[in-house]
């Protein structure tokens, strides 16, 4: 459909396997850089922080949450369009999803993993994190299921499990396809991963059903996950956090930043994995439309937030909004508005939506804006609570900024490893979008150019 006419089924297999097997020095250099950045900027400062205490970060008495939590929400948010979008598009049978959903789902997975790491970084005593897991023990420890943070634990566990299963299940036929074309350790790995997939009609039938059920289960799950993350804030009584709109606000924001994230990832895959034939202007156009709608909804909710703050007539809400708009962090707020509400309006133009580099820049800008949004939610609200005499200001420390950068490197590292293990675009679903092969005469059919290794 969107692929060029001259792509054959075999081309798809070849291209995808090539993307897994053929690894250039550029890849290794990138991997080396991202691993070093991850070690130097994430793990080193984190170990320092474990030794010193959370004091290594810039948090203080009124603002006990900082960039770690903002990063956590950001990564959770980024995870929201992968699997969710994939599921929605699967159920609605949108075929343009097929070229991009695998990497989008991977994005979900890895951003969830990074988000979980951010929780570890955020905790005062991460070595006791298992206490938040309900397992029977002699210490009479039991988690508190009334806590929104426990909802988080449950929801994120479920989401991580669900997303992992979902991406894995959709990849089983592809593992099988790759299995046949690889040798050595890769082959053994794919033999295990493909579970012995053959592609019989029964297997396809079962896979189809299971996949659809999963999609149906994961959509409400994904919506609940970010709603629950928003309740970490909204269930508190902190002015400007205690708002009913927070759950939809977070969900929309999550999908928004996630979709922008997909645009970024698509660009990179297209450019550096040579998937130009599969990831096309159509994807950017469609994602652009989606982004535009999301940005409008997001802007609407932001305007509502200001309106309710002003209309509430209470000193606390009013002050919280005033501080956000004109206080210490105001430059960040207006940066966010510029990146997330104003700049996306460019996507009204189709020409803009179908140009790759501008879309890349915009998608990165949107995610910077969305990170800022999360930071502002934490910083402005916590530093301006009920008792003015306890107000304070929070400025992230070097450790925090470094860990923020390092978490990005961690995500990139995970993604780099992913593209060499997972077929980063779906082989069989791409094939589905291709025209069905016509029957040929027997004489034209040649011997396969490669030997099966089974």
């Amino acid at each position: 459909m969107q692929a060029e006419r001259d792509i054959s089924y075999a081309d798809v297999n070849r291209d995808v396997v090539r993307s897994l097997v053929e690894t250039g020095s550029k890849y290794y250099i990138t991997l080396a850089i991202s691993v070093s950045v991850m070690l130097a900027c994430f793990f080193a400062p984190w170990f320092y922080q474990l030794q010193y205490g959370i004091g290594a970060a810039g948090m203080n008495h009124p603002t006990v949450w900082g960039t770690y939590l903002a990063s956590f929400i950001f990564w959770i948010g980024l995870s929201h369009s992968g699997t969710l979008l994939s599921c929605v598009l699967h159920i609605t049978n949108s075929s343009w999803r097929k070229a991009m959903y695998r990497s989008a789902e991977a994005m979900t997975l890895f951003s969830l993993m990074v988000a979980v790491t951010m929780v570890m970084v955020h905790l005062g005593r991460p070595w006791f994190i298992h206490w938040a897991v309900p397992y029977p023990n002699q210490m009479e420890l039991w988690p508190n299921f009334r806590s929104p943070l426990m909802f988080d634990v449950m929801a994120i566990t479920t989401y991580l499990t669900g997303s992992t299963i979902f991406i894995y299940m959709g990849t089983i036929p592809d593992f099988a396809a790759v299995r046949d074309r690889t040798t050595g350790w890769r082959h053994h790995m794919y033999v295990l991963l493909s579970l012995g997939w053959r592609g019989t009609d029964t297997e396809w039938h079962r896979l189809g059903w299971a996949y659809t059920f999963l999609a149906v289960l994961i959509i409400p799950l994904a919506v609940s996950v970010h709603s629950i993350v928003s309740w970490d804030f909204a269930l508190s009584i902190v002015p400007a956090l205690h708002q009913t709109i927070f759950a939809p606000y977070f969900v929309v924001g999550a999908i928004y930043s996630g979709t922008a994230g997909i645009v970024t990832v698509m660009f990179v895959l297209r450019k550096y994995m040579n998937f130009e034939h599969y990831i096309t202007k159509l994807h950017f156009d469609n994602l652009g439309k989606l982004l535009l709608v999301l940005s409008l909804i997001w802007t609407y909710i932001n305007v509502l937030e200001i309106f309710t703050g002003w209309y509430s007539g209470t000193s606390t809400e009013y002050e919280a909004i005033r501080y956000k708009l004109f206080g210490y962090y105001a430059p960040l707020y207006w940066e966010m508005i510029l990146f997330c509400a104003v700049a996306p309006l460019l996507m009204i133009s189709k020409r803009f939506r179908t140009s790759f580099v501008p879309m890349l820049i915009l998608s990165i800008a949107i995610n910077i804006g969305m990170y800022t949004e999360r930071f502002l939610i934490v910083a402005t609200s916590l530093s301006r609570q009920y008792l003015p005499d306890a107000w304070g200001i929070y400025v992230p420390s070097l450790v925090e900024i470094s860990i923020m950068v390092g978490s990005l490197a961690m995500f990139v590292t995970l993604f780099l490893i992913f593209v060499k293990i997972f077929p980063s675009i779906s082989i069989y679903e791409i094939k589905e979008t291709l025209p069905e092969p016509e029957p040929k005469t027997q004489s034209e059919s040649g011997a396969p150019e490669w030997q099966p290794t089974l």
Partner: protein
Amino acid sequence: MSSIDRRDFLKLVGAGGVGTGAGFMLRESIKHPTQHLIPYVIPPEEFSPGIATWYNTVCSMCSAGCGISVRTREGRAKKIEGNPAHPVSQGRLCVRGQAGLHTLYNPDRLTGPLLRAGEGKPGELIPITWDEGISQLAERLNVLRDDGQGNRICFLSKGVRGHLAELFELFVDQLGSSRLLHYDFAHPQTLYAAIDRLFGETHLPYYDLKNTRFLLSFGADYLGSWISPVHHGLGFGHSRQGRDGIRGRFVQIEPRMSLSGAAADEWIAANPGTEGILALGIGNYIVSQGGYQGSDREEWAASLAAYSVESVATQTGVPAATIARLAETFADTQPSLAIGGGAAGNYSNGVDTLVAVNALNYLVGNLGREGGLVFNPEPVVGRGANASQATYSTMLDLAQDARQGEIEILILNQTNPVFTLPEAAEFREALAEIPLIVSLSSFMDETTSMADLILPSHTYLESWGDDFPEPGVGFSVGAISQPVVSPLYDTRATGDIILGLARELGLTDALPWSDMEEYLQESWQGIYARGSTEAEGFEAFWTDVLKAGVWGETTRRVAPASVNASVIESVGVEAPVFSGSSDNYPFIFHPYLSNTLNDGRDANLPWMQEVPDPLTSVVYGSWVELNPTTASEMGLTEGDVVEVESPHGKVAAPVYVYPAIMPNVIAMPIGQGHDEYGRYANGRGVNPIQILSPQMESETGGLAWASTRVRLTPTGQRIDLVKTGGVSRDLGREIIQTTESDTDGGETASLHSIPITVIPT
């Protein structure tokens, strides 16, 4: 058995596959920090581990003389609380009293005698033994004493009372010296002088805040630093809300709102130095219109004629209507009370001011009655706290004598004049001329750092002593200070050092006691002999006093009811004289005693550094308080560093915009600015005493520390003040709610008070 124990196992795990992160986590999750909580290997008999022992003793953190109970566990002092039986503190304690433990356990304490080695002053201090120290000093003292040059010895102590003061007097007398001086920056000598002039009393009266209904305070920060804050706090609380249907009202008159000003119902800013004039204006109103019926009405009318309400209003800047209202309330609300102190007593006209203030008590008949001014009985021991107190001029004389080589040995006891005297006194330079300076301080401080011989004293929690609070509580009170822990270091009680010297000098006839405890026991025989106890025999009495922590006689003195006609005639307050011209130095400088650091002596206590200033919430530093109008005129905001320059020096500190200070006054807290006072005090803030002009109070010769003029120069630098407070305005949130009346509880309904129904979950 396997030779791998748990530790090895963990090492293996850590080193092995788990990796650094997990190994770290494991280490953190299993480690058990241990604290050495039980210092005794073999505990003394009276301790049972886990059971607290309480000792009653006396607080020495300021001169109020509160009784305290110290909780000890396993031989270590853990907590100080007020002694409920002691009439001064009645079980309560102030912020500084709580911090006494940090004096005891201060890491910067001197741990043993030190002698400056080598010739010349900047020699190194080397540890010596007590015997060496005592004998060397005794030798030097003996030479002068034998030569009849005893007067070349000066003994300079902080203000002490009770038998230790007696001991000092005996000792110095035996040395043949007349130079026994007590020096405290904040000693209220002008109040002593005023009370003396007005009532002929050499001791301070007791101001009965507890039962008063209307208090007019002229500059006395009675809740923060003035005389006996804990006792005043008790009185304040009781007067406000301790009686059915009666609520005391408090009015504070001062140029810069102090802690007491904030707690008061009304804060009135009168021009600095005109507090006494204002008092006389009120007096004038009472005499002329307030129905004063005393037999000496004519004399008073004559004396106060010059202080008509209108002219006073012009001079003080307080509206005439306010003066009239204050006068009427003061006269009509009985019992009422007028007190004066703080800056009001430390302008050039300090004594006159305080005479004027205290005269108000006479005019409305407050003398000698509940809720008024009660005269204290004669001190039980000695001549009272004011007897040996050095004024500023005395200290100047001492410095002069030192410069002329008339002082050969200076013995310092826990006082730090180098810090608490203005630079203009050039005291440091004078000290440099003294051949032998001996310090009995427990801590290194600016003055002790100049000493040649340091014989460190115990802190008050390790030594025997006694105290007779002055002013008392209207009757005689005394308490014995007993050691609550065994000494931490190789130090000795001040009294024991003196007795040791006396022994060494062969003065056993006059000072025959072997140690302070014995001396006290013998001295308290006299108190026992006063008969105000039911105890059978002295031993029982002694034990009782130690157990109760207090001894007292509840009989009150009958007060003199009249004021001499000549005194009435002398009542009058001159306009204050300020040092520096108002053109060059547009601001009046108002240093004030910090609630936490006192005159700077508590700056080495970490708790005191870290407890926020009550009014500004600033910690760990100095600041300059400016009126918001002044600040905005000068383009200054909080944190801008300004140079405060007087004719006698300058200091630089950040600005704090303070809403309750007169526009032409700038204020700075005293206490910071140490450079030789241990790790917690050194290098923090500045010492505003340094830049004070050597202006003296005209009658006593005390330092008129509130009469310096300064100018401000912005330096362009900025410092973020370290403080707890964010925005100290409640923005309509009704955090502190008020009610107009004590009884009806009615308040205006507000948005915030609308109850919200809780939805059951």
